């Protein structure tokens, strides 16, 4: 039986950059425990002699020639920006005062 605590969920939410309410934290911890129990079955057959598949196509790196092609103008690229200034995305402060 998987046991995902409220604190575990809070830590995962921090890693995933999502604030969660108390209500969401307690719901998710019980739901995740149930879901993880259901999906943990994969371990029954995942023996060491089976290679993993990350992708359905047998592709290696796909390269293209490095040539300039038409692309979005700055105005188009910024058209959905929540805030902008001087043709740049305007974002809240990233580093703290000490950094």
């Amino acid at each position: 039986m998987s046991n995902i605590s409220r604190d575990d969920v809070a830590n995962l939410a921090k890693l995933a950059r999502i604030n969660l309410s108390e209500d969401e934290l307690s719901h998710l911890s019980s739901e995740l425990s149930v879901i993880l129990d259901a999906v943990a079955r994969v371990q029954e057959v995942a023996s060491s002699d089976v290679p993993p598949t990350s992708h359905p196509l047998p592709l290696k790196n796909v390269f293209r020639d490095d040539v300039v092609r038409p692309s979005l103008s700055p105005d188009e690229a910024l058209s959905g920006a929540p805030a902008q200034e001087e043709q740049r995305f305007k974002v809240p402060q990233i580093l703290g005062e000490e950094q």
Partner: protein
Amino acid sequence: MINKSAAEMAAALTSGEISSVELTQQHLDRINQVDKDVHAFLHVDTEGALAQARDVDSKRKSGEKLSPLAGVPLALKDVLVQKGVPTTCGSKMLEGWRPPYDSTVVTRLKENGIVILGKTNMDEFAMGSSTENSAYGPTHNPWDLTRIPGGSGGGSSAALAAFEAPLAIGTDTGGSIRQPAAVTGTVGVKPTYGGVSRYGLVAFSSSLDQAGPCARTVLDAAYLHEAIGGYDRMDSTSINQPIPPVVAAAKDGNIKGMKIGVIKELQGDGYQAGVLKLFNQSLELLASLGAEIVEVSCKYFDYALAAYYLIAPSECSSNLARFDAMRYGIRVGEGSAEDVMNATRQLGFGREVKRRIILGTYALSSGYYDAYYGSAQKVRTLISRDFDSAFNHADVLVSPTAPTTAFKIGEKANDPIAMYLNDIATIPTNLAGIGGMSIPSGLAEEDGLPAGFQIMAPAMQDDRMYRVGAALESALLSKWGKPILENAPLLGAK
């Protein structure tokens, strides 16, 4: 004209019996009349559609050579970007966003003169099996408005079943084209992975996501498949080979001597009796048309659902990191960039999306990676091997598309595991990257609601599904005497 097939509409356009503007207007009128009850659309682009229709009409008048579907209207799932037209993915996160470019699917629709009526409702970021996870409210199944239309592409399938559009585009990560088709009595195809470009398809699980055609007939789906499919340099996972000849296969429909493999593991417990009965009747029809029915076993399919619910959440937790409140989409909260990110993602994402991001974050975290994500990737290998050996004994594989007919809205909303079980028969094809199709198999005797028959083919042999689908569709039509959707309630007749 709205209850005709897309091919019939195309013929009427070619003969001059109707113009694209008239045909488009008829569909806009129909949307106006019934969509308040069905809620298939999140956005109707009346002006854009009519402008596109006028353009096709004038090209036709000037004698320009047009594509087979030129002038026929279509409904587009709101997960594919269309320049200047709101694209929300059913999420609050993208409310009000107008993309600055066209997805390749949209580019090809426009090149083919296919008229885009608007954007259809879906589970948020395509995560769900009922369209109840849309931030903009659920879509209602035209067969019974109290029931779900499937998901995540419930808006596209409902639009077809309600005669709001003869064609639609869906995307299928674990069944989101095929299960909605099954529960609405329509046709849906997930092409081979890489068969249709993912450029401009908002990513959920990149190694599984695949756009494809939705329609009311197999031939219509084939025409749409050829219009949107094929290599695209903008998608590095796009397959650089010709599109399989799906229109020719759908027109031919000869299955004499074909071997059809019934997957033992995709029936029995958990499947509704009426759904299985229809499945078996369809098998008898296929046998009567000269196909040989064989049974195959895919013993690792029992692990497919578990593997999927690790792989898809893992990839989604990474893909959805792009919604960071910095470059597009909504932004809420005060303080540092990280505070704003945290607050925006709390408000912008719904319950199921948060659940999957947190699950994926867990499955990918150090200490758990090998046990969960790593094991799931190994199961993926085992499932592909199961398919490979099954295709040694059969040309196509078949199963019921979904274990049940449409359930009631709200019935499974609080039980994620019960909801996930809807996809039990559709998920294996996504994990292996092969093609899958759902066509209507009839109405289940318990509830009179439609069920789906699923056909799967090896990678890049999509034409085989169309051949078998067309054969079964035609045999069922002779048996029923009329298309299945003529049994659906008349909407908007008041």
